[in-house]
C-alpha cells in the first residue's frame, strides 16, 4: 500500500471556493420553510377575494379584519417575549381578564379613564413580575409557575368582582376607546400598530431585547457572555403581563363591562398566533412580525368563514388546521433544507 494515484489525479490546486456562487443557490425547502406561512396568507386572501368579490376585498372589510385582529395581536405580541426567551406564560388570558375587571372597577368608582388604564397596566406588569420571580428565584418551571400564578389571578378576580360582570354606569368614554375612530380607523388598530412598533423596537433594537433572544438561544452561553439571565427572564414576563392588561382593558371597553373570565380565551389564540408566526420568515424562532402575521391570518380566515356563511365551528377547524399545517410544513421544510 503505497501512495495512491488519487493524490495526483485530483489536483489540490483548485480547492472548492467556500464562498462560491453555489452558496447563493435558492434551496426550495428553505424557501418553503421561510415563506410558506406567508404564502398561506396570500393564497387565503386571493381565494376569498375570488369567492366573495363583493364583500371581502373592500376597504371597510379590511378595516374590520384589522380591528378584529387588534386585541389578539396585542396580547400575542406580548406573549412572544417569554417564548423568545425560551419560557412559557399560561397566565396571560387570566391576567387580561383581571386587568379588564380592575379598570372597570376603578371606572365604577369614578376614577378617570387614563388612571384606570394605567393602574390596570401596572397590575398586569405586577402579575408578570410575580411570574418572573417564581421562575427565577424559586426555580419553578415556567409552565407550572404561570399556571399557578394564573390560577391565583382567577381567584383574585373573583374576589374583586364577586364573580359578576363589572358594568360601568356611564360607559360612553370607556366604550369610545374601542369604538372611536381617528382618520376613519378604529382606535384598536392604532393600539395594535403602536404596540407592534414599540415591541419590535424593544426586541430588536435594545440591549434588553437582544439579551432575551440570547437567553432563548442558549442560556448558558448568554450567562457566560455577561448577560444577566434572571433579570432578562423576569422582564419577558413583565412585558407579557403588561400587554395582556392592554388587551383586557380594550376588551372590557367593547361593551363597557368586564366579565371575570372574558379574556381567558385569548390564551389559546395568542399561543396559536405565536407558533404560527414562528414559521414566518425565520427558522422556527418567535418574532413580532411573525406573530402579527399569525394573528392576521387567523382573522382573515374567520372573516372569510363568516362572509361565506359557514358555521362558527369551521373557525375552530380552520384555526387548528392552520396551526398544524403552518408549523408542520415549516418544520419538515427546515429538516429537508439543512439535510
Amino acid at each position, binding site marked *: 500500500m503505497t501512495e495512491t494515484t488519487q493524490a495526483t489525479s485530483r489536483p489540490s490546486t483548485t480547492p472548492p471556493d467556500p464562498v462560491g456562487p453555489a*452558496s447563493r443557490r435558492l434551496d426550495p425547502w428553505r424557501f418553503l420553510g421561510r415563506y410558506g406561512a406567508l404564502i398561506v396568507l396570500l393564497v387565503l386572501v386571493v381565494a376569498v377575494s375570488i369567492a366573495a368579490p363583493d364583500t371581502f376585498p373592500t376597504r371597510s372589510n379590511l378595516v374590520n379584519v384589522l380591528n378584529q385582529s387588534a386585541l389578539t395581536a396585542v396580547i400575542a405580541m406580548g406573549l412572544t417575549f417569554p417564548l423568545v426567551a425560551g419560557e412559557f406564560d399560561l397566565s396571560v388570558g387570566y391576567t387580561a381578564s383581571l386587568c379588564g375587571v380592575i379598570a372597570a372597577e376603578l371606572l365604577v368608582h369614578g376614577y378617570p379613564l387614563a388612571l384606570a388604564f394605567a393602574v390596570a397596566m401596572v397590575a398586569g406588569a405586577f402579575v408578570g413580575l410575580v411570574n418572573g420571580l417564581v421562575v427565577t428565584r424559586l426555580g419553578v418551571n415556567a409552565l407550572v409557575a404561570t399556571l399557578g400564578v394564573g390560577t391565583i389571578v382567577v381567584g383574585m378576580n373573583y374576589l374583586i368582582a364577586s364573580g359578576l360582570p363589572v358594568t360601568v354606569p356611564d360607559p360612553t368614554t370607556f366604550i369610545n376607546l374601542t369604538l372611536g375612530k381617528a382618520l376613519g380607523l378604529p382606535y384598536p388598530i392604532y393600539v395594535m400598530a403602536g404596540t407592534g412598533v414599540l415591541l419590535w423596537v424593544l426586541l430588536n433594537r435594545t440591549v434588553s431585547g437582544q439579551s432575551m433572544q440570547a437567553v432563548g438561544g442558549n442560556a448558558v452561553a448568554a450567562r*457566560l457572555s455577561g448577560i444577566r439571565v434572571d433579570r432578562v427572564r423576569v422582564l419577558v414576563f413583565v412585558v407579557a403581563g403588561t400587554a395582556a392588561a392592554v388587551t383586557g382593558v380594550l376588551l372590557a371597553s367593547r361593551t363597557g363591562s368586564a366579565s371575570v373570565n372574558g379574556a381567558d380565551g385569548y390564551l389559546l389564540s395568542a399561543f396559536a398566533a405565536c407558533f404560527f408566526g414562528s414559521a414566518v420568515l425565520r427558522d422556527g424562532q418567535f418574532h413580532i412580525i411573525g406573530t402579527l402575521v399569525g394573528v392576521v391570518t387567523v382573522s382573515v380566515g374567520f372573516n372569510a368563514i363568516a362572509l361565506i356563511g359557514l358555521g362558527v365551528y369551521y373557525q375552530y377547524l380552520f384555526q387548528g388546521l392552520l396551526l398544524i399545517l403552518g408549523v408542520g410544513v415549516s418544520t419538515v421544510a427546515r429538516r429537508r433544507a439543512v439535510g
Partner: protein
Amino acid sequence: MSSVRALAGDRPAGPSQEAGPLLEVRGLSKHYGGTQALDGVDLTLQRGQVQALVGANGAGKSTLVKVLAGLERADAGSVLVDGAPATIDSPQDATALGLSFIHQELHLVPKFTAVQNMALGYGQGSRLGFLDRRAVRARAVEVMGRLQADFPLDREVERLTVSERWMVSLGRSLMRDARLIAMDEPTASFTDAEVHRLFALIHELAAQQVGVLYISHRLDEVIDIADEITVLRNGRLVGSWGRGHIDRDRLTTEIVGAEVEKLTAMPATTATGHDVVLTLRGVERPPRVRGVDLELRRGEILGIAGLVGSGRTELARVVFGADRPTAGTMQLGGAAYAPKGPHEAIRRGVALVPEERRSQGLLLQESIVFNISMATLDRNRSSRHPLLSPRKARTAARDAVERLRITSHSVAQSTGDLSGGNQQKVVVGRYLRTAPSVLILDEPTVGVDVGARGEIYRIIKGLAEAGTGVLMISSDFDELAICGRVAVMREGRVTHVIDAAHATKEHLTQLCYSLEGTG
C-alpha cells in the same frame, strides 16, 4: 491482552472471503446548501485493515461517516460491501450490513447500566418484540469479557469513566456482529494508558478480520495505529498512504494544503513586564478547587496543565465569576476583585472562552453578527442614542471575521453551519470585543483542525504581545509550547509553575501525575 480470541464473535460464515473488499466507496458526493461537503471521494477498506481518515474540520470526514451510517444520503456515488452494491438508507440498513459507528458523543443513556445500554435496540424484530433478557445479558457479558472490561457491567453509564463508556459502545457494536467499526475521535479524553489499551483492542479486532475506520486529529496516534492513512481536504480525497510512507510533517502539510508554521514559545516575560495583572491567593471552591495561589503577568501566556478533574475548568469559572469562591482572595490590576457574575467579570476586563463551544459558547441558530455582539451589546449603540445600531453590530462582526480569518459566506450565516475552527474563532471574537486585560481560554483548540489551530495560536500570541494576560488551559502538551510559563494543577491546587522552556512533555506528564520529576 495475551490471547487472540475471536473478538468479533461467533458470526455465521458471512459473505465469502473472496468477494471484493469489505468496503468500497466510489465517487461519493454530497452537498449541503451551497457547500460541497463531499466531492467524488473514493475509499477502499479491506478486512482486517485499520484505515485512518484524517482531515481538517469541514474536510468531509463526518459527512462520509454519516452517509455510511445511513444518516445522510449521498447525491452521487456508490457504496459497495463485499463487492456488492449496498443501499444504506437508514441506520438499520447499516447495521444489517455489519457497519457500526462509535460517534464522539457515544449516544449512551446515562441512567442505564452498561448492559442495558448494550441491549438497547438489540434483537429488534424478534418474536413479538419481546427480548430474551437473559440471553441478551449473557451475550453482553460474553462480549465484554472478550474485551477484558474490568468494570461492573451493572453500573450506570453515568458513573463510568470516559474510556469505560467507550468500551460499552464498542461492546454494543460487537454484539451486533460488526464487521466494520468506524470510530470518531476515540481517544479525545483518554489517558495514555487507556490509549494503549484501545490500540491493543484495535489490533485484535483487525486480527479478527474486522475493518476499522479510525477518525482522529491526533496525528501521532494515527501514524502509530493505522495500516493506511487517507486524507480528505475540502470534501476531496487528497490521497492514501500506507504504513511508514508518510511522516507527521508531511501529513500535516497534506491536511492543511500548505506549510504549517511551527509553534514557537513566547519568551517568558520574567524580565521586563513585571506588573502582575491577576493575583489569586488561597482561592477555594470545593470539591474541585482547593486553595490556588497564582500570579498572571501582563502580556504573558500562562498555561495551565493538569489531568481531567484537576480543577482547571472550575478555577477558570471562579476567576470569571461564573462560580463564587468559598475562600481566598483575588486581585485584578492591583484592586480587589470579587465578581458577582460573568457580567461583572467582563466589565472589569476578564473574559473566558469556555470549554464546550457548542453548548456554552454559541447560539448555533443565530448569525455570526449576533454571536460576536452578545457580550458587548452596549457597544452596538452610540452613547447618546438609546437604540442599537445593526450597522455597528455588522461592522464589528466583519472586523472580527477579517481579523480572526473566519471563513464564512457572510456575517449573516448561522454559526451552526461553520466548521469547528471557525466556530471557535467566533467565540474568541466575541470575547475579544470585551477588550479583556485577562483572557482565559479553556481547551481552545479541541476539535479544531490543524490549520485553524495555528491561527488561534497566532491570535493568542498577538493578544499577549498587546499586553493581555492570557491563561490557557490545555490538555495538549504540545500546545503549551506557546506559553511562557506553565502552571500544573493537581487535585485542586497549583503544584508547580515552571518555565515553558523546561517543560518537556514527559516532565509535564510526571508533574500532572505528581511523580516528582527529577529531570
